[in-house]
């Protein structure tokens, strides 16, 4: 009977994952399973089509590099990527707070060749319009307002051929909303026991916060030691004094418990 080391070597040759943690019986089972799968398992790569690695001892390594560029697998002759697809869709890909690119595909039988247009919208407001004059295309939009929800539609003769999902453009600076909401989550408990949106579970702004004090704490936290001068004022940490912090935490834990 082979020892564990030999079995591990064999498992390595078979590409068995997790072998280092397996006991002898597990190794044997995994090796048997792998051997059974060889030649039939899809990802095990059919043995007959794979090159057999030559033993290291018989192949001078230096010559190996000069084995040339002869392919060891038959070349794949596949069709090139098409210029049009049999699908109609449009997608908005945000680039940064002010820029995005809209990509679309229009199924050839739906493609009107001319007259189709792309509309970029925020709610029902049309932000920009562009021609959708190709079956597979893209259009860049810049100079947009940050921190807004946008979507795109491909329209032909008043009919919406495709509509994208809504995408949020990120803000380009810190939020002006100062409503610290604290929560306590036990990492040992599954998240599934908590509400899906903790903000709603905790209720709206549990305590009013001083924007001035919050700003100072935020400056300290975001600029690190470089901002030492900014936070010398005594009232900055007071925003989250022990009592205040406790009040915030309690309310949230309680809300989660109820949920």
């Amino acid at each position, binding site marked *: 009977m082979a020892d564990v080391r030999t079995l591990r070597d064999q498992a*390595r040759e078979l*590409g068995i*994952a997790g072998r*280092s943690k397996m006991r002898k019986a597990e190794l044997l089972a995994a090796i048997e399973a792998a051997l059974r799968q060889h030649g039939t398992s899809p*990802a*095990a*790569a*059919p043995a007959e089509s*794979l*090159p057999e*690695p030559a033993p*290291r001892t018989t192949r001078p*390594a230096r010559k*190996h*590099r*000069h*084995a040339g*560029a*002869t*392919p*060891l*697998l038959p070349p*794949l002759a596949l069709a090139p*990527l*098409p210029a049009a697809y049999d*699908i109609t*869709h449009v*997608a908005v*890909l*945000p680039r*940064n707070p002010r820029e995005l690119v809209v*990509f679309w595909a229009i199924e050839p039988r739906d493609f009107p060749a001319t007259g189709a247009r792309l509309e970029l919208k925020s709610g029902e407001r049309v932000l920009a319009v562009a021609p959708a004059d190709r079956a597979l295309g893209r259009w860049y939009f810049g100079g947009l307002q940050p*921190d807004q929800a946008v979507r795109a539609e491909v329209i032909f003769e008043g009919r919406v051929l495709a509509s994208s*999902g809504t*995408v949020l*453009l*990120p803000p*380009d600076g*810190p*939020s002006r*909303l*100062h409503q*610290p*909401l*604290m*929560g306590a989550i036990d*990492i040992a408990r*599954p*998240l599934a026991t908590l509400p*899906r949106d*903790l903000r709603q579970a*905790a209720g709206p702004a549990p305590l009013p916060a001083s924007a001035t004090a919050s700003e100072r704490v*935020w400056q*300290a*936290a*975001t600029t690190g030691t*470089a901002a*030492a001068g900014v*936070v010398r004022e005594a009232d900055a*940490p007071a925003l989250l004094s022990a009592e205040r912090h406790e009040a915030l935490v309690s309310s949230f834990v309680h809300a989660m418990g109820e949920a």
Partner: protein
Amino acid sequence: MSRGYLALVLHAHMPFIRHPEYPSYLEEDWLFEAITETYLPLLEVFDELHREGVPFHLSMTLTPPLVAMLDDALLQERYVDHLEQLIQLASEEVGRRTGHVQWLAERNLELFRRRLAQYTHRHGGDLVGAFADWQDRGNLEILTCGATHGFLPLMQSCPEAVRAQIEVAIDSYRRRFCREPRGIWLPECGYFPGLDAILRDAGIRWFIGEGTAIQHATPRPVYGVYAPVYTPSGVAVFGRDPETSAQVWSAESGYPGHPDYREFHRDLGYTAPFDEIAPYVQPTGLRKNVGIKYHRITGKTERKEYYDPWRARRVADEHAADFVRNREQQVAFLSDALGRAPIITAPYDAELFGHWWYEGPQFVGDLFRHLARSRVVESITPSAYLARHPEQQVVQPNLSSWGANSYADVWLHESNEWIYPHLLVAARHMTDLANRFARPDALQDRALRQAARELLLAQSSDWAFILQTNTSTQYASQRTVDHLERFRALYDGLVGGGVDPAVLANIEARDTLFPDIDWRVYRSR
């Protein structure tokens, strides 16, 4: 009792590069170089720290493609070949050099032999298992990542594709590490509002985010990046600290640019007379990096002095001491200002340490040695931090990444945007296939699995990144097209004239990632 924490997070990732169709392939060297210069040295540092009784805690991503490649028998075989060649070259160098360079060559020879012994005997070729051991000991927390490192903010129009990137990765992690991952490194730290709900459904508890993900969140986070925040779905985000980032990454003031450190760009493969290096260059005869370097950075001019390992070693220790001293000042200041123990999250590419910054692993070891003496800062993993400090603020972070400009500009750029029309359609087609086939036959099942693999491989953010940075653009472009064409061929076969078994077998032999992938993950929910 410390006053705050340092969470060091190393992101180890390589795109899936495996070319069984050729006897050797230049881009496979990326993995081999990372093994020799980063993964093995880091494991050696962990061993040293353990022997010295130094407490250390850190987190590391081992991305699914990297795990698959490290576990792959063919690549393991080729790695040993690669290292044996390096030993041969180093040995020849000892014979033909004199003086200080000969001494450096001898050190290289000794080091490469040690690496070979470490790889084959110490770890038995099982580097993933070696890292997993440190996780079992409680020193290391291993994160998962997107299945193929797809940049998720640009997939949000197809939630099934996002979910597949997450769930396939978690399944792969579970199989390999026999446990659930708690943390995830979002590829390129790419987050968009709503992603946290998908992570929550997959059982993820925290992720690393770019600083602006937190700093620009709503409402304004009172502790900035020096405490994690909870997203609305309850998944925590640890924000990257800009100060620690700059100390290491900055091209101007970062540690790796010190004149005494080894010069990455002066490689023997480009400096030696061709006849000396000929057996070790590309099959085409073109030169390439061989991993032997005799010079130090010296300065910004082309004139380079010879490397002095002892001086470099000293500097790495000084830099580690400086890094810890700065964290102590930072923590002391922040703990007073914030009224609570801050956490400084310091995420880096793992390959920076050793591959790009040769002395990086020594720095990591010395960092923990200095931290062990600190009464102000202690090392911690994000999961351990959350267990100790469950109360955090709830905010909505915004779209962000750790790329230039902190958004999606790098991965959606004029140089790479041509890939997206095809990727978007392929993602929709994959969901269409998953919805369509309720009871596939054996051949269809194989084709569906392979189609899922091809889509995932095409989505790797590495290709778009390489196209944008204008480095190995031909390879990145070809890989994207290859996977999309393979996907298209399988899709056409499945919905049209039937799958060609020979074509399928050929594709399966090339792209072996995720042997147990469940393509049903793409079904609409």
